[in-house]
């Protein structure tokens, strides 16, 4: 294969809900493919069918059904991290085992909250206030899939809520339903999207022309430094020299203010730039934040797997064409 590249990846930071890594030795097409795959191609579980038995709440059935759909569902794998659901399930339209849905392609949840029952259980000082039905009230019928009420443990601990609010109930209101989660991808509906944020930024390449910069007055230097809202430059007070600020790589926003302001400072229009900020073409910093349905690392892995699958499908088709 000519011009074959060997992209590499370096994890910058990782947590239960977000991941930051650097992708290098490749170009923007690869980076964007990965981003797009993470957003649109990674399969997850989400509530897709809702059967209402009773709904006397203030919200309509469709409204609640839509809200349920938006709640992230987590597939629990060996290390309880929220793994790739493709390992456990098949998409319902591919399921050959059943007519409607079965354990292979769907998971059932139930929700049954009655204000009067709930209110009776509560402490006296809370009695009479509305009961908030949350995602924590959704009971899973399978031990493989659970509701991800919180993105991570930290949120769980700091939150005042029990989970994601679905509807508030007041006296005389009750809600009882059966919800079926199915596997799908975000291309079909955004509820199957595993990420909140999946994006990358270009590493900035900054060239400081110290020779030119030396010609500037201190005021002008200050102006140069201040015009960048991302504060990628600093002015060394002692030496009066403009230097790159610490951690500038993570902050650069590539505003054009710098360009405009220095063109006004130039003695001749054809003079060289004092500072030039360009976007690198082969280094990208990715940020992936999970909705809670999958561990961010799993998202990246699953996205790559999907990509591989697509490519192998493509090769297969092409070879068939040749034949």
């Amino acid at each position, binding site marked *: 294969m000519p011009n074959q590249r060997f992209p590499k990846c370096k994890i910058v930071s990782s947590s239960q809900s977000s991941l930051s890594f650097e992708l290098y030795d490749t170009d*923007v097409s690869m980076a964007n493919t990965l981003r797009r795959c993470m*957003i649109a191609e990674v399969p997850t579980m989400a509530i897709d069918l809702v059967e209402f038995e009773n709904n006397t709440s203030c919200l*309509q*059935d469709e409204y609640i059904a839509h809200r349920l759909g938006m709640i992230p569902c987590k597939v629990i794998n060996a290390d309880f991290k929220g793994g790739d659901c493709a390992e456990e399930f098949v998409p319902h339209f591919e399921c050959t085992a059943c007519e409607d849905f079965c354990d292979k392609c769907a998971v059932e949840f139930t929700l049954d909250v009655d204000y009067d029952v709930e209110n009776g259980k509560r402490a006296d000082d809370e009695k009479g206030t509305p009961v908030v039905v949350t995602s924590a009230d959704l009971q899973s019928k399978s031990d493989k899939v659970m509701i991800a009420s919180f993105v991570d443990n930290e949120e769980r601990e700091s939150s005042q809520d029990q989970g994601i609010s679905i509807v508030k109930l007041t006296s005389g209101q009750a809600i009882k339903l059966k919800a079926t989660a199915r596997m799908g991808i975000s291309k079909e509906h955004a*509820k199957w999207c595993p990420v909140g*944020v999946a994006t990358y930024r270009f590493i900035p390449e900054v060239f400081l022309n110290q020779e030119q910069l030396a010609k500037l007055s201190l005021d002008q230097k200050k102006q140069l430094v201040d015009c960048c*809202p991302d504060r990628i430059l600093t002015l060394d007070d002692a030496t009066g020299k403009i230097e790159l600020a610490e951690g500038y790589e993570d902050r650069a*926003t*590539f505003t054009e*203010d710098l360009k405009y302001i220095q063109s006004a400072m130039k003695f001749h229009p054809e003079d060289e730039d004092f500072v030039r900020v360009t976007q690198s073409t082969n280094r990208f910093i990715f940020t992936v934040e999970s909705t809670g349905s999958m561990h961010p690392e799993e998202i990246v892995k699953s996205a790559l797997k999907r990509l591989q699958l697509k490519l192998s499908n493509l090769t297969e088709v092409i070879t068939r064409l040749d034949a």
Partner: protein
Amino acid sequence: MDVDHYEDQYEEEVTQEDSWAVISAYFEEKGLVRQQLDSFDEFIQNTMQELIDDTGSIRVSPNIQHTVGYDLEKAEENSKKVYEVKFGQVYLSKPTNVEKDQSVSNIFPHEARLRNLTYSAPLYCDVTLKQYDMTNAKMSDLPNMDPETTEEASKVFMGYVPIMLRSQFCVLADKNDFELCELGECIYDQGGYFVINGSEKVIVASERMSNNHVYAFKKKQPSKFSWVVETRSQVENSTRPTSTLYLQMYQKGGRGAIEGNQIRTTLPYIRTDVPVVIVFRALGTTDDRSIIEHVVYDLTDGEMMDMFRPSLEEAFVIQRQDVALDFIGRRGSAKDVTRRERVQYAGSILQKEVLPHVGTEEHCETRKVFFLGYAVHKLLMCRLGRSDEDDRDHFGKKRLDLAGPLLGGLFRMLLRKLTKDVRSTLQRCLDSGKHFNIDASIRSTYITSGLKYSLATGNWGDRANPSKAGVSQVLNRLAYASTLSHLRRCNTPLARSGKQAKPRQLHNTHWGMVCPAETPEGQAVGLVKNLALMAYISTGSPQAPILEFLEEFGTTNLTELTSPRLVADPRTCSIFVNGAWIGVHDDPEKLVNTLRASRRSIDIDAEVSIVRDIADSEMRIYTDAGRICRPLFIVKNQKLAIQKTDIACLQLNPENPDKLTWSHLLAKGLIEYVDTEEEETTMVAMDPKDLDPSMSYSSTYTHCEIHPSMILGICASIIPFPDHNQSPRNTYQSAMGKQAMGIYCSNYQVRMDTMAHVLHYPQKPLVTTRAMEFLHFRELPSGVNCCVAIMIYTGYNQEDSLIMNQSAIDRGLFRSSYFRCYVDEEQGSKAAGLTSERFEKPVFENTKGMKHGDYNKLDDDGLVQPGTRVSGEDILIGKTAPVDQGLGQPTRFTKRDSSTSMKATENGIVDQVLLSTTSDGFRFTKVRVRNTRIPQIGDKFASRHGQKGTIGMTYRQEDMPFTAEGVVPDIIVNPHAIPSRMTIAQLVECLLGKVVVFQGCEGDATPFTDVTVDEISKRLHSMGYQKEGNEALYQGHTGRPLNSRVFIGPTFYQRLKHLVDDKVHSRARGPTAMLTRQPLEGRGRDGGLRMGEMERDCLVTHGCANFIRDRFFTSSDMYRIHICETCGCVAHQDLKNQKLKCLSSGCRNKPPNVCQVDIPYAAKLLFQELQSMCIQPKLYTDTRKTRDNKY
């Protein structure tokens, strides 16, 4: 509060920020529809009783009857008796409803809305019947006589009066939020409307010229007259229509050889114009000198005397009063009468009909002479160029008729009808010697149905010839702001077609009274206005206390004036009260100050306006209803009268005894209402800062604006930074805000509106104005804060379309519910002997005329069940009507179907079904169908700056451009939408929104404040973002950086009610019109798309004849007939014998020679119509024969 701190505060100046405390106090006390409520309360509490008192008594004596067996002697004795019916005190009870079974119960507005009832209260009146013996008395003695018998009936039922919601007589008046919820009301609902037959009706204020004012207008040439002075005279609270007096100055020369410049006047009932000097003489001022004194005042004014001379000379021949009266009388309507009668007739016209507002009792002549003199003086002044023409569009000379005066007029008319009816009943009873029963003779239907009819239809006045149409309108419930705006609307009854621009233009005097932005576009532009936020309409107060005060304060009454020449003295000041000249005063300065002071301490009504016109040395006082006022801070000694401590007290807890309210501010003289006319005599500072001695004019200010943003109305107050927009854009947004979906009221779930849109996830805007607080826009918002990028992307947002993020739509962005209500009731059968209609599930076996739809979704009771999914033409309400089976035709049908089906183009889920009874006791149902509307290509959206557009494309998140932070826009608008429209405010809103979203607060976009774009930019810069809000974006499909930076940030967008789903329409075949057999028009009827003249012209130019034939003929109304080729007539088609023959006399017995032709059905109709008027059109297929004239 410790003392030091207290003093510190005292020292501090009141700033513009503090005025918001004052404004809050205003809205807390008054709400937003105070003018409606006050006006209605005034009607109920005073006007109604006054009108009843004004009716006077009905006096009737029995007529002598000449029938057999009639006791003539007794009758004769009886005829001397006078019976008098008199109406006394009126009472209004709580709103009630009477059911079919006559049971009476209290009714609440919500029930009235649901059950299509009228929210009205019964009106009762004390009535007395007195009998007098007139044998030895005259009619004029009657008031002092003792009646022989007196019969009193207390609280006789007069009829039902519809009650305005939240007025003092409404059950909701003193309810708190919790109680309102329990009653099914919206806690933010302001009332101010009526519920008539279940629909909410607003009385829209109507604008008119003020009465009793002397206007001078220059006549447009060519005309007989050079100047005209007119006065629409009407007595305070009078029944009578206005009597307008015109004084006209003639042009010089002309064919009549009259000298020119003479002044003549029109008089009511007098056919020709009368020289004005003759009128003076007829009023008793006969000698020239005193006439001149009354007109010119200053006898040294030679110029004016010269100008008046032609008028005097014209009347030279008539010098005596009786001659003058005779002169007038001769020109009256009466014919063949004696001179004495003529004189008397003229006298009574002058007394009763001319200038009635000055006085209609005897001996008013002096004052009438003065007033007439004043009018002539004004005319001469104008003619001499010393004063200008009056401005017709001056808002100070306009009055707004609100619910009170309009209902008052209606009530007066209905009362007259009722009393007329009572009189005839009484007469009939007396003549026939029957007992007169008071209760039975007062028919309540006059008032009940009269008021209900006018409110329900908007036709004001008599059912037969309504004087005005469109007075009451169905309350707009699309968005909360549109409801509020509708309740503050004001209409100018002027021909919409009139091209005249003047009355439509914004006038200087509209400042602070009507909104400069909010007016419809098109025919009604400028004629339909909306009140500014703090505008208040006076309800009218009695003028007697003012007159008394003036009397006490040394006003010289006109009748006591020694010489009219005193008026010319610049020190004396003429005093007018409600347009009538009361007298003169020689120290107007002191008088004005005292009057103002007593108004500021509420000794005289706060809404009285006191205008001192120094230039004309006049003082005008107005107490009438319908003046538009607004509150202003009072400035004393170059300082606001209101202090920082007052502001602090305003903000106290309501329980605190020191708490100040709006009415306290009025009573303390810190604020006063100033009407448009008085405003002209004030000097108003725009900002408290302007009072600083260093500012120019600072010493001259008498008032200070509370806040300049209060000049805007409801809809314009929602616009952020309207002062940064091109003005038409604010007007467009004011119109569009009314179509925005949101939550139109908090009780929408229990309401059964015919149509309603509710937004699923409404948000309060990030960028707000202070006025929104009072409009409850944060509580009931109508839009969503979207991340908007202004950029070009893929080309699917050209020409005002937008690209929307499909993933955001999936997540619920701009999702909304659409509710539609279907109503039906079991109507009683008109034919006798038949039962009424019935709700039931119709069956094919015995029901004829059944529809296409699906009847299977009906329950046995004939109604659908909530939760059923319905679509297409499914039947929602099954109903059958019995069929008259007379005529001896045996059929299997006993019923006819009259079910209600869904609109063919809609679908949804049955949300709620209501089953109740009407006031007539018939069963009645409302079925509400709900439907979720997800944004899709073609749906309409708008920002708050008149920037509307439809979705041109939706892209999923991965295809949208993104920033390095992963931010993806929800909406992408095209940058071409900005430069030509100059909606800078949208950019500022976006920029401030971006700042605010990172700071976690609300952005203040109130107009006329000190916020600058520069300052916002700095804030954004300091947060690490590019200061102008531009960001580097990456192309979603390729991931490459875009070349230019993109302006991106949160902007509040509204979803408008125009959705493609309600508009998509196509048709191949379908229904045709019965008569013409051409396709129907309109989506609702599944009609075709019209191929009009212009489309035809286009086809003609292309020469595609066959296509034209297809569109206009084959696909339209093609029809086949047979014609006889011999005679050209339509041939007969004998289907039974399968034969074609011509029946015309010439061909009857000949072998048929028939051919078939295609003609438009319309042509066939034409032929038939021609035949009906004895013209026989003939059709020949062979042209040669016609050419050779073979027939």
